[in-house]
């Protein structure tokens, strides 16, 4: 951490572009997410959300534009940038052949944390999710919603200042979805975590959320959801999205 000179923005993107062979997938993407803000990256499938996440997490190299996490360029200061980052990927990343506790222990090792030091905190968090009694069960035995909530808990173990969540609620029932979103919103307000929440589900957006609408690799609108509704003269986020992208959307 920088300490007193810590920047306000958890995440800043400036003119980020990316090409697959013969195809531009991200074009001049610029926006920022402040600490303690829940920002929805709203876009249909194929809009470039996952590619953007791959660039932020340095799975791909950002050659065009700049990405900064708490003021640090991910390209030049990868280790310290990544240490401030928690990620829930679109694909499940729990090891189903390990127990809940073994999964968390493995993650601690990858983050340079000592599991024993966090044991109490981990047990408390598992208790809040109702998973403490199942800590020694194989991850395979958990339901889809429980696995996702566990992944979320895991992503927050090292107390990151920025959380990236790539469509984490896809395929879950309505109750699991609500529980997961609430879990993240709580972290956002209580712990001051900046959240970038990628989704194509418009009903996950609240009027007070910061929203970045991305379509075919370009940012079409950004600001508070209420403001975007006013600017597009729409009554709902669904209508606003349709007005901006010019196409039908679920």
């Amino acid at each position, binding site marked *: 951490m920088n300490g007193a000179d810590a920047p306000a923005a958890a995440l800043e993107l400036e003119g980020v572009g990316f090409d697959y062979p013969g195809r531009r997938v991200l074009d001049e993407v610029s926006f920022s997410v402040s600490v303690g803000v829940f920002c929805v990256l709203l876009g249909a499938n194929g809009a470039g959300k996952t*590619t953007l996440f791959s660039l932020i997490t*340095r799975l*791909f190299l950002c050659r065009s534009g700049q990405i900064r996490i708490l003021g640090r360029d991910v390209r030049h200061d990868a280790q310290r940038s990544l240490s401030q980052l928690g990620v829930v990927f679109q694909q499940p*990343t729990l090891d189903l052949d390990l127990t809940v506790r073994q999964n968390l222990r*493995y993650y601690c090792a*990858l983050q340079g944390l000592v599991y024993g030091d966090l044991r109490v905190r981990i047990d408390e968090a598992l208790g809040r999710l109702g998973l403490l009694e199942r800590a020694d069960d194989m991850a395979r035995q958990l339901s889809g919603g429980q696995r996702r909530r566990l992944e979320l808990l895991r992503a927050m173990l090292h107390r990151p200042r920025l959380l990236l969540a790539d469509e984490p609620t896809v395929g879950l029932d309505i109750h699991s979805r609500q529980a997961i979103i609430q879990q993240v919103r709580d972290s956002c307000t209580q712990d001051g975590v900046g959240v970038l929440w990628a989704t194509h589900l418009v009903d996950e957006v609240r009027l007070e959320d910061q929203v970045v609408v991305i379509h075919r690799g370009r940012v079409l609108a950004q600001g508070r959801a209420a403001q975007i509704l006013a600017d597009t003269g729409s009554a709902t986020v669904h209508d606003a999205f349709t007005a901006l992208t010019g196409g039908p959307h679920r």
Partner: protein
Amino acid sequence: MSPRRYLGCLLGILAREGLRFLHQRERFFGALVRPLVWLFIFAAGFRSILGVSIIPPYETYILYEEYIVPGLAAMILLFGGMQSSLSMVYDREMGSMRLLMVSPFPRWYLLLCKLIAGSLVSVTQVYLFLAIAWFWDVRPPPLGYLLVLPALLLSGLMLGALGLFLSSVIRQLENFAGVMNFVIFPMFFASSALYPLWRIRDSSVALYEICRFNPFTWAVELIRFSLYAQMNWIALAGVGAALALFIAAALYGYDPGRGMARYKHSA
């Protein structure tokens, strides 16, 4: 990050690979059955056909079973290395590879940890195989069991690094079977695992030269000599050089600006 945290990261990855191996019992037994079939059946059948003259490190005539045991030990490492890379491709499709890659530790270190973990699992299997072979009357000198350990580790790392490199260039699991056929079988058969190379030279000098420069041959000979408490410096140099080359290729393959970008379409 302090050295203690680096060590914690290594131990965490070792524990994960070890637990996965123990939990996947089919994989555990599958890895043992393969060389045992070769030892119990193939070697019995070919014993009378493939006579082996006295060649170093052996000081007397030996049975065919005894000749192929080091080759089969190397085969376990070869399959282990490839299986480990197969799991990397699987992990990547399932997303858990991403978890590894976004760790704040340097990427080269994470891949090295993964490589060491995979090699240790394979070496454990080899020792189990050697124990069973002992009951089959293949009994190298007791000191050989100790001296072969560095040879197994080095060879395991070399073959694991090859697998790691392959996993960086293979996009999807479906492509893996083809590569296995193009890598495992040619490497195994064009080596000294099943027959001494002078027998190949009698048939084809060109093939003999290919076999001589096959990294798998170096691994087999390094293991063979070490198991009989001798050193084959050429094999050691060969395995070392191949290890350096394959590690460099694997790190290149997993560089975010280069190889990683190749499988972006599956993202």
